[in-house]
């Protein structure tokens, strides 16, 4: 008989390990990745590969340089690469995803201690860095989907749906706008909100970042993660719910004249709510905290979309909320069994 192993209880463990969690997320991203290639061509695939390889290589090099165990096989760097690519316009030059991935890993992840210790979502930090450094590529390198237009409408072919919304809204809330402009803006909005446009948004037949456009493909992946219990409903539901409520309240002329369905389906909201706001490392651990976090993301996203300078605000909202996570966790601790007192 071999010597007996001794060790602390429990002596049996669930099978799921870090790698299992990470590769489940990778699997969940596959439908949207295929969608990205379908809509935006082989270029989208190259960008995904470049970002992923760069992220993995950067992690290996950083760990080698600091004489730490090389953990690239855990799959977390791969996720960062894919998510970064998902958040880039399809027309960016090929060096851009590489620079973004290097920043995501070498600046936003490794210096903080690597997996588990990074305060910001690395992929979003990479995207924010690129947006600040090369704004033209990041806000203009759109390409129309293979079978549709950039905006998902016929009248306009030069902006994404949220871009059109931004322009129309700015005209409508500008007191000096002429009657002509006003009526044009209103007709744009009417077309954006039409069922044909919403259908394009749902299936992904519009312009946007590589992995964000197809709501249905993202939801298929999200359903897999929910069923597997890798993510829970709290963050996505509170996030999307808040955006829906606030855009309905504030997104139109006067209170409660907005069109929430358009806001929920457009931009990076579904991608962000299910795949980035739910990033375990950078979101709260407590059940209540997750709801608070989701509501916070939802408020910020709506504020940026309706009142900010950018047409889209998902990335920045999540990054800002990432910073508040330790605070949220501290104030949303569950009431212990038998703890006396309120809440």
């Amino acid at each position, binding site marked *: 008989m071999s010597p007996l192993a001794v060790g602390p209880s429990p002596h049996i463990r669930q099978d799921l*390990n870090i790698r299992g969690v990470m590769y489940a997320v990778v699997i969940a991203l596959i439908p949207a990745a295929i969608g990205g290639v379908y809509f935006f061509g082989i270029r989208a695939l190259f960008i995904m590969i470049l970002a992923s390889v760069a992220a993995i290589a950067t992690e290996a090099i950083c760990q080698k340089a600091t004489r730490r165990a090389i953990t690239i096989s855990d799959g977390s760097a791969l996720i960062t690469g894919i998510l970064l690519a998902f958040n880039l316009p399809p027309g960016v030059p090929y060096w851009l995803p590489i620079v973004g991935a290097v920043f995501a890993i070498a600046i936003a992840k490794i210096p903080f201690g690597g997996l588990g210790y990074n305060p910001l979502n690395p992929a979003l930090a990479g995207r924010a860095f690129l947006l600040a450094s090369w704004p033209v590529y990041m806000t203009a390198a759109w390409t129309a989907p293979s079978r549709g237009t950039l905006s998902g409408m016929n009248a306009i072919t030069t902006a994404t749906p949220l871009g059109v919304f931004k322009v129309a809204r700015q005209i409508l809330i500008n007191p000096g706008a002429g009657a002509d402009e006003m009526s044009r803006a209103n007709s744009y909005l009417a077309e954006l909100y039409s069922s044909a446009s919403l259908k394009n948004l749902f299936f992904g037949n519009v312009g946007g970042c590589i992995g964000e456009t197809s709501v249905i493909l993202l939801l298929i992946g999200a359903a897999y993660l929910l069923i597997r219990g890798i993510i829970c409903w709290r963050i996505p539901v509170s996030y999307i719910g808040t955006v829906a409520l606030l855009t309905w309240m504030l997104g139109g002329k006067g209170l409660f004249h907005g069109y929430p369905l358009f806001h929920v389906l457009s931009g990076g909201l579904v991608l962000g709510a299910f795949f980035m706001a739910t990033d375990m490392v950078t979101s709260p651990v407590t059940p209540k905290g997750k709801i608070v976090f989701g509501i916070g993301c939802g408020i910020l996203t709506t504020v940026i979309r309706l009142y900010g300078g950018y047409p889209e605000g998902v990335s920045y909202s999540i990054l800002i909320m990432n910073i508040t996570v330790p605070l949220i966790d501290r104030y949303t601790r569950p009431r212990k069994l038998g703890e006396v007192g309120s809440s």
Partner: protein
Amino acid sequence: MAKTFKGGVHPPEAKVTAELAISGIELPERVIIPLSQHTGAPSVPIVKVGEKVLVGTKIAEADGFISVPVHASVSGEVKAISDYPHPLGRAMPAIEIESDGKNEWIDLSDWHDLTDASPDRIRQAVRGAGIVGLGGAAFPTHVKLSPPEGKSIDTVILNGAECEPYLTADHRLMLEHPDEILEGLRVIMRVLGARRGCIGIERNKPDAIQKMNEALGGENAIEVLDLKVKYPQGAEKQLIKAITGREVPCGGLPMDVGCLVQNVGTAYAIYEALKFGKPLVERVLTVSGCAAKRSGNFLVRIGTTFAHVVDKAGGMTEDCAKVIMGGPMMGIAQHTLGVPVVKGTSGIVLLSEAEISLEEPGPCLRCGACVDHCPMRLVPNEIARLVEKGHVKAAESYGLMDCMECGVCAYVCPSKINHVHLIKVGKSEVIARRKKESKKEG
């Protein structure tokens, strides 16, 4: 709707021995009876080396109120009083008795049935029989039967949940001795003046639920309650919450909410002690696990070595990697089979290499699974991290001392972090500090 609590997990039940009746086991040639088999002060030996003893002879006396006497479990000769391996981890004083093979009992023929005796007489007899909680914690039963002035207990709960994987000793006991268990429960209720008695059984034991209900007839004061199958359904505070809805306050005891929980095996031992004067010299335990060649439920004398029990049960396979006293969730890993069965040994589980996880702990992903599943609703990842970094005081403010070490957090953790180990380390530091502080004040 079956009753339950919030949190918990569903490990594989693996109750492969549920159908196997309790059977005796060939008596060992020698027994090693530790002086410390209960929570509280170790007993003090009252026999000398070379002395002849019978089964049931008292060989060590209780030391103080929270302590119980210990009895010989075979007839024969005291061989040595010395340090021996103990299932709790280190060597501890024990009395070794060589069996004469005759299995001669002390004379119990003039014993008067004490099941109807006065509460004080019953407490005395329960203590005299060396009875402790047989669920695993081994807290002296007479102490639980003596609530301090001002605490009244209205509900007695018998714990038949048996939520640990593999273990079926309590299950078999309920099937084979339902009347005795009920009689034990009635005695406990009478001693405490409790109006309500409950027997909580997990739904995966429908035969036990039925059997206990049949034995009950239609008695109003006692009811059998089916519980959801979920670990740790049999944990004291979770059981009380599930059955009565009451929450034992943090740092408090069940009696603070008018409850008392006893294991079904303890109720059976109480009955046997009062009815026949039989001291606690044997207990039912389960031998199981993927590395056990034959599994079963056995009535085993206290002090029998694990080696003897495993051997007589059928032996172990080549790939046995871990031997656990108790269940795989909360049991204690043994480094040798030379340790004896003690009063709290509910099972010997032999785990194969494939069953145990030897994966190195990784970084916490903050996935929150431990928080979602913690039955005490703590934040285990944070407590473990704080202890690891040496911030034990901060860990205390996060509920370190409220943890019951059920192991749910570590079971679900994808990073394979040893929360329970870290929490035990933190707790021992807190206890050491509190001792030092109270010394300073005193």
